[in-house]
């Protein structure tokens, strides 16, 4: 579904991404794990063309999207849940969800997705008229995911969905990620919480200082000695 080859991104003089290559096939959950500053977020941001890579190619549905506008990517089913949620705190929950469907025209399909989001996150339904900024971090994360679902994603990029959340809520969020995947949405996920991520992933990449240093099936990486030592705290 998406193939990144030999991606290089610079921030000013800093070589942040140094030749990353990875691939996600349709229907999979793939995770990208690694420490802070390894370049995981930059990789996702480059996919959405929020960063301009200096070298490399990104193929989405067999088209080169390196220079495509973000708007057109969203229209084509490529959607990012940004790090730190970034819900529109001055808008209500419902307005946030409506904006998720900003580019869509089919009112009936939008209403169905809205119902699905409310079914996944009953809490959002209770709070639909409330300003997003008044909700807790976990609820805002649910909203950020719900809003992304309203864009009708085919490939959903998620940047640290567990960031700053209580362990119980992290579990909920990952349950829901699995449910979303079962509905046919392909998922590329960034996580610092390597254990939960690897458990649900079909495939995973480990990133260190701008490079992919290890890759493999999620289950295999869970058992890998290096991964255990560096990321699983064993």
């Amino acid at each position, binding site marked *: 579904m998406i193939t990144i080859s030999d991606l290089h991104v610079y921030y000013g003089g800093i070589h942040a991404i140094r030749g990353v290559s990875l691939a996600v096939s349709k229907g999979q959950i793939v995770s990208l794990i690694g420490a802070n500053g390894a370049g995981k977020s930059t990789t996702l941001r480059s996919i959405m063309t*929020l960063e301009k890579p200096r070298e490399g190619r990104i193929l989405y549905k067999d088209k080169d999207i390196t220079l495509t506008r*973000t*708007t057109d990517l969203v229209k084509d089913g490529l959607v990012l849940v940004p790090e730190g949620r970034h819900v529109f705190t001055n808008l209500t929950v419902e307005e946030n969800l409506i904006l998720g469907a*900003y*580019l869509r025209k089919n009112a009936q399909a939008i209403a169905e997705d809205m119902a699905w989001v409310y079914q996944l996150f009953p809490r959002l339904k209770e709070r639909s008229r409330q300003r997003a900024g008044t909700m807790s971090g976990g609820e805002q994360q649910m909203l950020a995911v719900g809003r992304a679902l309203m864009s009708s994603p085919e490939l959903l990029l998620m940047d640290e969905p567990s960031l700053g959340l209580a362990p119980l809520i992290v579990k909920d969020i990952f349950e829901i990620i699995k449910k979303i995947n079962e509905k046919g949405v392909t998922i590329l996920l960034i996580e610092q919480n390597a254990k939960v991520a690897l458990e649900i992933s079909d495939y995973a990449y480990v990133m260190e200082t701008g490079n992919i240093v290890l890759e493999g099936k999620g289950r295999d990486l869970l058992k890998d000695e290096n991964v255990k030592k560096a990321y699983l705290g064993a």
Partner: protein
Amino acid sequence: MSINTFFQHLSNGLALGSLYALIAIGYTMVYGILRLINFAHGEIFMISTYVVFYGVSMFYLPWWVSILVAILITGLLGIIVERAAYRPLRNSPRISVMISAIGASYLIQNLAIVIFGGRPKSFPIPDYFNTVIQVQGVSVPIVNFFIPVITLVALVVLIYIVEKTKTGMAMRAVSRDYETARLMGISVDNIVSITFGLGSMMAAIGGVMWGLKYPNLIPLIGTMPGLKAFIAAVIGGIGNIKGAVLGGFLLGMTEIMIIASLPDVTGYRDAFAFILLIGILIYKPSGLLGQDIGEKV
């Protein structure tokens, strides 16, 4: 002050306040989205009055057609100013954009002097609007009724657009977070254009009614109302549309009431606007309805 003259001043204050409110909206909407004071806004307002003048006296358009044309052209002018003077500097330091705004203001003003001439022109007023009506012994020019009503209609339409439509939601989203708005597929550039267009059209509605009340047109007429409306927007809490309206009415009313009750200080009327601004900023730096701590202009 007798009760009669009080009502007379009240109607004048309402009318002036309406005009300030309409212009202030443009400042506040643009600030809300770009964190930029559009110093050319007063000039955009000025252009709208000249469009009506030339529409009627040169192209012999019916009065109301000239007004519609003026609103459209002024909206377009706002969009052009943003494209030409602000968009190329979107990622520059704020001071550059501010200087560009001041430059745009002087450019439009001086172009107006060159093209329209510095000699005063007389805003065309249909006879109907020259009537003065007597209400219980108080004589009130009919425009004083007309102005607040039209203002109210314009405000209701604007607030509907901002609060209820998808475009309005996108405007509010962009004002909070450009990048995330882009992730929803919102085109930030289009939303900025729409914001400038709407704000300028509101100024044009204000400009037309300003002409009805103060029909003496010179290319500098935008400066003082522009400044006052900016003050109104700051008083109400810049970035907040309802605040701009409140600030506009407060300022217009205060100005009229002070010169009405203290005729000796009429020459200082502009100073009162600034005193009011300073007073309110001392007690509430973010303005009456502002929530965020204001940023330095």
